[in-house]
C-alpha cells in the first residue's frame, strides 16, 4: 500500500523515466522503435526455421506457439536484463538526488511492459492470421489477456527487485543472471509446449508437476491457452503452485529491496 502511494506521488518522475528509457533506447537508429517488434519477430522466425529443420517427422511445430512463446519470453528477459542494471546505471542519480529508490526498478519494468504491449498487438494480428489460415478462430478467452499480462508484469517485478538490489552489492550478479537466463530459456516452454513435456513425461506425472513450478511455464502456456482453444489453461496438478508462489516472491522481493536500498549510495 505504502509503495503504491509512493508511486502515485512520484508518477511524474516515473513517467519521465519510462519515457527517457524508451526514447534513448533507439535514438540514432534508422528504424528506431520498429526494432522493438523486429527483434522478437526475427527471433521467432529463426526458431521456427531451425525447429522445422531438426524436428522433422512426427513432431509438428505450430508457428503461433513459437511466436507467443518468444514474445512472452522477451518481456521477461528485457525486464530482467535492464532491471539488473537499473541502479548501477543510474549511480549518479542515486548518489546525488533523493527520491524513493523503488521508482527505478518500477520504471524499468514499466518500459519493458510498454514494448511488450506493442509486441502483443503484433502477436494478436499474426496469431489471428495463422489460425484463420488453418480454418480456426481465436479463443474468446483472449479478452482475459490484460489480466495475464498484469500478472506477468508483477512476476517480472519480483525478479527485478532481487536482481537490481543484488547487483549493487555483488557485481557478480550480472554474470550469474545471464547464465541462469540461458538455462531458464530451455526450462521454459518457449521453443516447445507444455503438452510436449507432458507427453515426454508419460507415466511420471511428477515431471510435469515439477516443470509447472516454473512461473514462466504456466505464464507462457497461459498465453497460448488464451489465444487458442485447443491448449488447456494450466491449472492441473502443481500448476496452481506455479501461479501462487510468485506472489510470495513479489512480497519478499519488495521487502528485500527496501532494506537494501538504504545503503545503495555506499556501494555505488
Amino acid at each position, binding site marked *: 500500500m505504502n509503495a503504491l502511494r509512493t508511486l502515485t506521488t512520484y508518477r511524474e518522475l516515473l513517467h519521465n523515466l519510462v519515457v527517457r528509457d524508451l526514447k*534513448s533506447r533507439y535514438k540514432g537508429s534508422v528504424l528506431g522503435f520498429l526494432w522493438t517488434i523486429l527483434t522478437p519477430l526475427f527471433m521467432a522466425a529463426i526458431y521456427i526455421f531451425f525447429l522445422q529443420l531438426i524436428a522433422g517427422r512426427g513432431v509438428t511445430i505450430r508457428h503461433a506457439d513459437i511466436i507467443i512463446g518468444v514474445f512472452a519470453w522477451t518481456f521477461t528477459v528485457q525486464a530482467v536484463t535492464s532491471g539488473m542494471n537499473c541502479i548501477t546505471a543510474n549511480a*549518479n542519480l542515486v548518489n546525488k538526488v533523493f527520491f524513493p529508490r523503488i521508482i527505478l526498478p518500477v520504471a524499468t519494468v514499466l518500459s519493458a511492459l510498454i514494448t511488450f504491449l506493442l509486441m502483443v498487438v503484433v502477436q494478436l494480428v499474426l496469431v489471428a492470421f495463422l489460425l484463420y489460415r488453418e480454418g480456426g478462430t481465436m479463443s474468446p478467452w483472449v479478452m482475459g489477456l490484460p489480466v495475464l499480462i498484469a500478472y506477468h508484469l508483477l512476476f517480472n517485478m519480483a525478479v527485478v527487485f532481487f536482481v537490481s538490489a543484488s547487483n549493487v552489492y555483488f557485481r557478480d550478479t550480472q554474470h550469474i543472471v545471464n547464465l541462469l537466463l540461458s538455462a531458464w530459456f530451455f526450462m521454459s516452454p518457449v521453443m516447445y509446449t507444455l503438452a510436449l513435456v507432458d507427453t515426454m513425461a508419460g507415466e511420471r506425472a511428477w515431471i510435469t508437476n515439477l516443470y509447472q513450478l516454473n512461473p514462466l511455464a504456466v505464464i507462457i502456456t497461459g498465453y497460448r491457452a488464451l489465444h487458442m482453444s485447443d491448449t488447456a489453461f494450466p491449472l492441473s496438478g502443481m500448476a496452481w503452485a506455479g501461479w501462487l508462489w510468485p506472489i510470495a516472491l513479489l512480497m519478499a522481493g519488495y521487502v528485500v529491496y527496501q532494506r537494501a536500498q538504504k545503503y545503495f549510495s555506499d556501494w555505488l
Partner: protein
Amino acid sequence: MSMAIEARHLGKAYRVQGMAPPTLFGTVTRLIRGQPLEQFWALRNVDFSIPKGRTVGVIGPNGSGKSSLLGLIAGTITPTEGGVRTDGRISSLLELGAGFHPDLTGRENIYLNAAILGIAHEDVTRRFDHIVDFAGLREFIDMPVKHYSSGMYVRLGFSVAIEMNPDILLIDEVLAVGDMAFQMKCLDRIRLFQKQGKTLLIVSHALETVEQFCDEVILIHEGEKIMEGKPEEVIFSYLKEYMVRIGMLNVEEHGTREAEMTDVVLRDEYENECTQFETGGAMIVDIHYHARRRIDKPVFGFNIKTGNGFYVYGSNTQIENVPMDHIEGQGVMRLRIAPLTLQSGNFFLSLSIHSWDHSVQYHRREDWHPFAVRDPHGAQGVFQLRHAWALQEKA
C-alpha cells in the same frame, strides 16, 4: 524558533573495502575467515541545529566529510549513527545535470531533470522560456546534450534546479560553475532565496563567498565538527589553524638564514598585538631580525594575498628607496601600513629579507602570517579606492 535542520550525534561509516564494489567471492571468503570489516568514519558525532531562514556555510578541507554531511541531510545517504531531522521540503543544488541523458536533447532533459527534482510538469512548461534564457542556451536547446560543453551542461542543470521551490536548499560547491556572468546570476538567485526566508546550507571552498552569504559557519575536519560560529571568526581560524597545518596554502619558509626573522608581530595603531584590522585604520608589522653577520644594503620586502591566493600588493625597501646601509645583530624593522585600504576579508602576509641584487634570499616566509580585515562601512571588493562623489550642474 523552530529548527529547519537538526543533526544529533550524526555519524556515517564506510567500509574500507567499499571503495571497490564487493564481489561474491570476496564476501564469502571474508565470512569464512571471519575477518571483521574495516571501517572508516567519514563523519562522526556531529551535532548542530539550524533555525529556519538561516544561511549556514560548511567549510573544511577536501575529504573532511562536507559532502557526506549534505548527502545525509538530503537523504541520499543513510546514517550509521544518530540522525538528522529536517522540517520542510529539501532540494539540493548538488546534482547539477545528474540524470541528464546524453542522447536526449536539452529540451527533453529539462523535463526529465525537473521530474527528478520534483518540479511539476506544468510549472516547467510555464517557465520553460525563462529556464532556457537563464541558461543562455536558446539555439542549442534541441541538440542532444552529449554535444554540449561541460559549462553548458552545468548551466542547464543549474537553471532547472533553481526552479525548485524548496524550504531548505543544499548547495554544494556549485557557485563556482560557469563564467563570471553566469556566476553573478547564480549569486543573485541565492540572494533571492535568502530574501524569501528559505534555509540555505552552503558547502564551498570559496571562503569569500561563504563569508559574504552566511549567517553562521560550521567548520568540519576529519569528520568532526571543529567549530561553529560567526563566519569571519570561523573562517579566520580555519585559515590560520587548518589551511596552514594541512598544507592547503603554499606556506613555506626558506633562505640562507644569514639574516633571520626571529619574530613577527602584527599590531594595531595602539600597539596592541592583534590579527584583525579595520579598513582605514593602521596595521603595524614589527619584524624582529637577527643578522648573523654584517649585511650591506639588505632589502626587506612584503606582499599581501587574499585567502583565495589573489595577489593584492607587494613592495620592498629597494623599490621605495628606503635608506639602509647595513644591518648586523638583532634589530626591529617596522612596516607601517596606514591607512589600511584593504576591504573585509582574510589575507596573508609574506615577508622577506634578501640581498640588493636579489641573488641571495636570506629569509623568506611565504603566506606565513594570516590576518583579517573588517570594513565597518560595508563597501565591496578587495581594495579601497580613494574616491569622491559630486552631483554636477547641468551644462
